[in-house]
């Protein structure tokens, strides 16, 4: 008796292990994607696929349900019985300008529940739609090929070292060295550019005014000193001496002021150039996704 039962159990177990998962695939694409069905069959030949393009416009309102996973359980069970499949795979692809959105749903026909969902929004790349579709299906089947991943990475930069940037920190620094604020404007930092330009223009103007006053005082001093030495009239001597003394004092004050302002201007100028370099245009190393306040997860 045991000799009969054991082979029977073994054969049944073997037949259940070799049983291929069966899928009903419902593709809803807003644009025609040629050979999508053929490529799915070729890439996953261990699985059995049934296709039905007649079933359209189902689950358009899936996101409006409180519990999308169990919202269409009866319909899924019915479809499972009708097509004799264990899973229903619903793939939706919508194109938006240079992007496309793939919304993939995997239902178990035994329970009728939604067991897996993937919704991705990607920039279009060569054969991107079919590649993402295959990756999604592969994910549900536990199969991932490196080639598919490489195809997806084609939309990323290959090697940062090989990139040529239109704008560089050094370009910003040189521009700021030529004209304060130019480097910041070049880096699209308008406020910073305005502040730097304003500060440097003010300092430069103050320096020029101080220098012009110094120059005027120095010339006045020399002129009055000459007049002082050229006269023997005591009143004129006193007058020219007083004027020369005043000019001498002014030329000392304005000289010191001009030197201080020149130092401040040049220091500011160099700092402005360094600032332009430090905060110059660079590729982003950290890219964060924008916070989605409408997400259900965030509400929880």
């Amino acid at each position, binding site marked *: 008796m045991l000799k009969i039962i054991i082979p029977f159990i073994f054969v049944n177990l073997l037949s259940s292990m070799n049983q291929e998962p069966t899928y009903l695939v419902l593709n809803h694409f807003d644009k025609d994607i040629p050979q999508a069905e053929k490529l799915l069959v070729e890439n996953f030949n261990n699985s059995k696929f049934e296709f039905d393009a007649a079933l359209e416009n189902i689950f358009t309102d899936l996101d409006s349900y409180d519990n999308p996973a169990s919202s269409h359980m009866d319909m899924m069970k019915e479809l499972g019985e009708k097509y004799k499949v264990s899973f229903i795979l619903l793939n939706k692809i919508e194109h938006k300008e240079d992007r496309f959105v793939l919304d993939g749903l995997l239902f178990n026909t035994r329970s009728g529940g939604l067991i897996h969902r993937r919704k991705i929004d990607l920039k279009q790349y060569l054969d991107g739609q079919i590649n993402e579709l295959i990756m999604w299906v592969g994910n549900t089947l536990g199969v991932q090929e490196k080639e598919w991943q490489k195809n997806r990475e084609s939309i990323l930069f290959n090697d940062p070292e090989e990139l040529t940037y239109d704008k560089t920190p050094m370009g910003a620094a040189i521009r700021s060295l030529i004209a304060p604020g130019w480097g910041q404007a070049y880096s699209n930092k308008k406020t910073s550019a305005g502040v730097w330009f304003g500060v440097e223009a003010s300092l430069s103007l103050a320096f020029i005014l101080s*220098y012009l006053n*110094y120059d005027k005082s*120095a010339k006045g*001093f*020399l002129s009055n*000193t000459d007049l*002082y*030495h050229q*006269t*023997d*009239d*005591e009143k004129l*001597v*006193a007058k020219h*001496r007083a004027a*020369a*003394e005043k000019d*001498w004092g002014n*030329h*000392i004050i*304005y*000289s010191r002021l*001009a*030197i201080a302002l*020149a130092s401040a201007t040049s220091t500011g100028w160099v700092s402005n150039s360094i600032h332009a370099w430090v905060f110059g245009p660079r590729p982003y190393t950290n890219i964060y996704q924008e916070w989605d306040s409408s997400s259900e997860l965030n509400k929880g």
Partner: protein
Amino acid sequence: MKFIYNYKVLIVLLFTFLSCKLYKKDFDNPVDYIANDDLGVDAPALVFYPKTQTLNQNEVVKIESVIVFHPDSTESFVGMHLQIQFPNTLLELDTIKPGLFITDTSNTTPLFTYSFDGDNVIDIYTYFLSETKLNIEGTGHIADIIFNSISTGSDSIYYDLDDCQMIKINDDEIQIMGKRGAEIIIQ
């Protein structure tokens, strides 16, 4: 590279053009009582103007003899005796004329005479005479001494203060406190 070189040249030129040179004060007019005071020459002082002259040989050398008072302590005077020594190896006395101060800016004719010892000493005697004023007061030009330069070299002309005298209208003497000579350079 050429751009960098031009840039450096521009910076050097800018710094040269905009350099703030600081000048030293050089107030040394003999007629200036403050400058004399700084040199330790108290007022009233007998000085020559200008303090230095550089001339060529066989040119006329004109030197002004000036009395300098401090404006806060002037005194009226009428007569002066000045004794001056000059380098006779360089200069030859030509003539001596009364200055503007003693003539009240050419309004009066003072008593003005001088003597020369034939060597290097000149004595000038002057007395203020006017129909409207009794005396004069303050800093002023007493006499013009005119020489001819006869040889090259440099030397000084100076007052012999021991024999110089300044008197008031009542013959009281006013003490002359200081003197400054003048340098003559004949090229």
